């Protein structure tokens, strides 16, 4: 044993050797490390402290930079920490500060070691112990070592004292009762003349006040003195941060500090201090016009600075100002808009936020236009940032700022075509949401949806799929607004739709169903209206229809045959291997294809409601959906089967009525119309928005256990995926009837605008010529698709910055624009619970103990008669209330606390009631804590408690005076 230990000592690698070896990398890093770890494991058990500590040093190096676990060595760390040699002790402490945490078991062993080092005469040993304590002090350690820290807080050596101050934060956090011991000394340090100590103690208060500002209001005079006198920028920054938290609580304080802060703003040359002043003013002193003005002036200097950091911070300061002082942004709008095309991503983002904050219903169109143009040529990340913020801003509060929904819906369509767009989900949601909420926007929605569906190139982009799904749903649901439903159907069933994921395709199929029903219905209605001219029409179209019918028969038989074969195949090979029969299908398909082609060529386009076209329509659907009847996706399979079977049902009637061409057809027609009407009825109920609270109103059925643990189920059905994004039936909120006037007006518009997109369709048809009609006349020569998302606006974006500024100038300056000639359409808003209730940020109630302790100490130690009286009078009264409630159980207490958070608009009553709860909570917890601590240092505690009780009693005497302020008169 001794021999090996000596060998280890003699030939041990030092940390330097280890690092050199790592850099040489003769055997690869991980191999080298594992070899080194073997050595370390051996060496660390050595009895020689030098060997042990070197091994530990190497271990902590590897742990810190190479992610090697060192928890196993915790005991060795303790051993090295207790070494008498400073160098080794230092290694031990470093290792401890790196690897120890609250759950480390050996922490129980080091209390005495820490105590010894804290009381050492060597200031560097003390500093090591303090450093460590600031990292991993536990409740026990904090409690046991509080007396030592208390002593160090008034150490004559500044070096030690500042570190002791630094450690106080952690100790207070872990063991709030330490406040009663140490707080006074901490406060005394606020008057220190040594800037280092002052900086440390102000830093601690800054941290404390950020968690619970109210408790530190009584110290405002001390802070104020520092603010006025100190010349140290570090200290001033921290004091400003404290005041930023305190000022909103006490208007008199705000009035008092405005003057010194503006003075600093005028004088200082340090940008960091300047920025802190600006931030304090814009956050907490925004009611003081002159100060804000000065701050904005200074911010402007930041904005035009070349340093991107200052620019970014300047923009950030402006964004804080927006809600109250939008003029500040207007004054600087040029810089802001220019920053949108800055190279710095931070600057861009911040200016984007600013621009979005300026959006109102008057300028939303212009600003969005500018931003969308900008998005077109931005990098993908920023592009999506822009799109995201447009969507978020416009969608806010149920589209509050949108007046012209037709514009907005087309904007959505445009945004989804932007090349980098990754916002499919948001756009999908908004398209559907608008469809349900805004009745007047439906025609435009259908138009936009059609344009998206019809573009075959979009199908290849996976980020488009969700948008396409929304487009499909919208067009299907509101098909009555469509001018050319046949065209829609064609788009929904185009061959490239096999690129879509099954869930989206299922939506396509369902939409196709709705469109088809709509077509059938309109055909039937037309027949009913002029049933007299029915026969004539048929005769007129006779020859055409007959030829169409023949084709149809042929195709039908072909597809029947095909499906028969398929079914057989399915029977034989229930899954997977359907390769061989595919060849025959291809032949069949081609046959069918030509039939369909000739059929549809006849009349699908022009006369939408002749019988022939209906038949072709059915054929087309049957042909396109045929392959889906053996889809592996259940949803898709079921929906396409539904549709196909329905067609079967209809088809039995139609050929006969064609053949006979006399009165009996009317009867057949009547039968179809009955079916169609039934289905139409099923579809006619409108979807409405559903309140977010709707679920709550549904009573839970008896016997339904919601909280059962279903973990076992997960194992059983782990590969079943639940369908996402299903829309539930809401009770229809509208009386739905196709509004004919809108329809006609719309159709006019649509036919105009559709010219552009029909060329897309035609190109697509050309590509897949076999499937489609040899289309309209407007066929141009290009063979390929245009790229899915063409940058059309490139040319006029050269002088973008200037352009942006100009546009923004117009939109921001002309506040009163009279473009709202059209009244805003009705947007359905549920009376309540439309949005998720915004959960306000909960103040950290777990720090209650700490803040209570602080308040107790401050109140107890406060020498100023006026304030202390006011305090005591208010506090004990609330404490008494707390006592009355002491019987309340935990549950009710937590409820009360929640209630507090909600009614945070702190008027007098609320504040007082909150205090009640706090003290109530405190009394319970504190009691137990006190019991614990009493065991430890009885004498000490008793004195303190005694004085507190006295304070309580004297307070009881002046009970009815209720004042919530703890600011001494000094400030008034």
């Amino acid at each position, binding site marked *: 044993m001794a021999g090996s230990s000596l060998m280890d000592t003699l030939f041990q690698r030092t940390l330097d050797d280890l690092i050199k070896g790592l850099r040489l990398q003769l055997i690869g890093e991980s191999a080298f490390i594992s070899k080194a770890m073997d050595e370390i494991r051996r060496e660390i058990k050595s009895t020689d402290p030098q060997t042990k500590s070197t091994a530990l040093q190497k271990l902590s190096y590897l742990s810190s930079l190479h992610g090697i676990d*060192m928890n196993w060595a915790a005991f060795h760390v303790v051993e090295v920490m207790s070494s008498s040699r400073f*160098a080794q002790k230092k290694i031990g402490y470093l290792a401890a500060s790196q690897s120890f945490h609250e759950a480390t078991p050996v922490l129980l062993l080091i209390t005495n070691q820490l105590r010894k080092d804290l009381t050492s005469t060597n200031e560097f040993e003390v500093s090591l112990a303090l450093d460590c304590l600031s990292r991993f002090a536990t409740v026990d350690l904090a409690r046991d070592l509080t007396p030592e820290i208390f002593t160090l807080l008034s150490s004559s050596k500044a070096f030690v004292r500042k570190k002791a101050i630094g450690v106080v934060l952690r100790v207070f956090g872990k063991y709030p009762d330490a406040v009663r011991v140490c707080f006074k000394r901490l406060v005394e340090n606020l008057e220190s003349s040594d800037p280092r100590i002052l900086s440390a103690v102000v830093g601690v208060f800054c941290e404390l006040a950020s968690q619970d500002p109210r408790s530190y209001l009584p110290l405002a005079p001390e802070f104020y003195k520092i603010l006025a006198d100190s010349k140290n920028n570090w200290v001033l920054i921290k004091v400003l941060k404290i005041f930023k938290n305190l000022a909103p609580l006490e208007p008199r304080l705000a009035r008092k500090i405005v003057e010194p802060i503006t003075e600093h703003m005028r004088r200082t040359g340090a940008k*960091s201090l300047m920025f802190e002043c600006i931030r304090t003013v814009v956050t907490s002193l925004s009611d003081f016009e002159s100060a804000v003005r000065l701050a904005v002036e200074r911010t402007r200097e930041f904005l035009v600075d070349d340093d991107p950091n200052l620019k970014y911070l300047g923009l950030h300061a402006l964004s804080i100002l927006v809600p109250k002082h939008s003029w500040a942004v207007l004054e600087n709008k040029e810089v802001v808009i220019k920053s949108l095309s800055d190279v*710095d991503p931070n600057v861009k983002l911040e200016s984007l936020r600013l621009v979005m904050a300026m959006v109102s219903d008057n300028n939303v169109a212009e600003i969005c236009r500018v931003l969308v143009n900008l998005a077109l040529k931005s990098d993908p990340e920023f592009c999506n940032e822009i799109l995201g913020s447009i969507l978020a801003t416009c969608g806010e509060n149920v589209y509050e700022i949108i007046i012209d929904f037709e514009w907005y819906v087309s904007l959505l369509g445009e945004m989804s075509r932007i090349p980098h767009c990754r916002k499919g989900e948001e756009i999908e949601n908004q398209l559907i949401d608008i469809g349900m909420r805004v009745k007047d926007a439906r025609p435009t929605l259908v138009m936009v949806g059609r344009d998206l569906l019809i573009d075959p190139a979009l199908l290849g982009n996976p980020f488009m799929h969700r948008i396409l799904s929304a487009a499909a749903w919208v067009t299907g649901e509101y098909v009555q607004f469509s001018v050319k439903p046949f065209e829609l159907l064609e788009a929904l069933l185009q061959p490239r739709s096999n690129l879509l994921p099954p869930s989206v395709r299922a939506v396509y199929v369902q939409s196709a169903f709705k469109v088809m029903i709509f077509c059938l219905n309109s055909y039937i209605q037309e027949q009913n209206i002029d049933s007299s001219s029915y026969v004539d029409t048929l005769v007129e179209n006779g020859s055409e229809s007959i030829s169409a019918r023949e084709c149809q028969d042929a195709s039908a038989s072909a597809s029947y045959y095909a499906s028969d074969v398929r079914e057989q195949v399915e029977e034989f090979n229930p899954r997977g291997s359907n390769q061989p029969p595919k060849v025959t299908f291809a032949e069949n398909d081609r046959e069918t294809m030509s039939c369909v082609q000739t059929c549809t060529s006849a009349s699908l386009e022009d006369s939408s409601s002749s019988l022939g076209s209906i038949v072709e329509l059915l054929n087309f659907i049957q042909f396109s959906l045929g392959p889906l009847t053996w889809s592996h996706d259940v949803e898709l399979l079921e929906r396409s089967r539904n549709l196909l079977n329905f067609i079967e049902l209809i088809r039995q009637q139609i050929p006969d009525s064609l053949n006979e061409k006399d009165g009996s057809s009317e009867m057949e027609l009547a039968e179809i119309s009955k079916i169609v009407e039934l289905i139409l009825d099923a579809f006619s109920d409108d979807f409405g928005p559903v309140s977010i609270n709707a679920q709550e109103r549904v009573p839970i059925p008896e016997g339904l256990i919601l909280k059962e643990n279903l973990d076992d189920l997960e194992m059983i059905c782990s590969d079943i995926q639940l369908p996402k994004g299903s829309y539930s039936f809401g009770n229809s909120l509208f009386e739905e009837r196709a509004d004919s006037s809108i329809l006609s007006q719309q159709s006019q518009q649509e036919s105009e605008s559709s010219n552009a997109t029909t060329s897309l369709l035609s190109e697509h048809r050309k590509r897949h010529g076999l499937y489609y009609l040899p289309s309209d006349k407007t066929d141009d020569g290009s063979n390929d698709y245009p790229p899915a998302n063409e940058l059309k606006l490139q040319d006029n974006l050269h002088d973008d910055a200037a352009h942006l500024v100009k546009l923004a100038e117009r939109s921001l300056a002309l506040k009163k624009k009279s473009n709202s000639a059209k009244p805003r359409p009705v947007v359905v808003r549920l009376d309540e619970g439309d949005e998720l209730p915004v959960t306000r940020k909960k103040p950290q109630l777990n720090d209650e103990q700490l803040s209570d302790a602080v308040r107790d100490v401050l109140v107890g130690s406060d020498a100023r008669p006026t304030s202390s009286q006011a305090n005591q009078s208010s506090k004990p009264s609330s404490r008494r209330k707390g006592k009355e409630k002491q019987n309340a159980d935990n549950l009710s207490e937590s409820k009360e606390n929640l209630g507090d958070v909600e009614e945070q608009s702190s008027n007098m009553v609320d504040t007082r009631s909150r205090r009640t709860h706090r003290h109530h909570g405190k009394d319970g917890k504190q009691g137990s804590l006190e019991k614990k601590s009493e065991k430890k240092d009885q004498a000490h505690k008793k004195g303190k408690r005694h004085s507190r009780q006295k304070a309580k009693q004297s307070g009881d005497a002046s009970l009815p005076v209720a004042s919530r302020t703890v600011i001494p008169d000094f400030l008034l």
Partner: protein
Amino acid sequence: MIRAVIVMNTQGKPRFAKFYDFQPVEKQQELIRSVYGVLCSRAENVSNFVETESIFGPDSRLVYKHFATLYFVLVFNSSENELAMLDLIQVFVETLDKCFRNVCELDLVFNYSKMHTILDEIISGGQVLETSSSEVMKAVEEISKLETASNSINFVSKTVSGWRG
């Protein structure tokens, strides 16, 4: 409060890392990697702030500075001033420079413990305690003296390691 100090080179190799709220080692490595992922994609001459709430959780900011082959990174919360943190990096680097005379990456590689000593004089428990590099130097020198004094008694191993080195 400062939450972490990280020094890494431009290839993403950590040279120094200190986290002021405890993180298990795997988490540390992961954080360092994600910070590097953000930093390496940033151009020169852009602002030194990075939004890192996705990496370090709410109320966290990150400031970095790029010196030659090294990134110096500070992660902190809203109790610190962004520009002051930039200054603090400057103080740290200045002190290193004084300590090693024209500091370069190699100095940091071989002086792992010394870096800790220096930083512990500047920041303790996440609080900035010293901002003057000469004060820091004074303390660091005294600590080094103390270390050598306590080590010189043990001289066998020292000479051996010196001979081996």
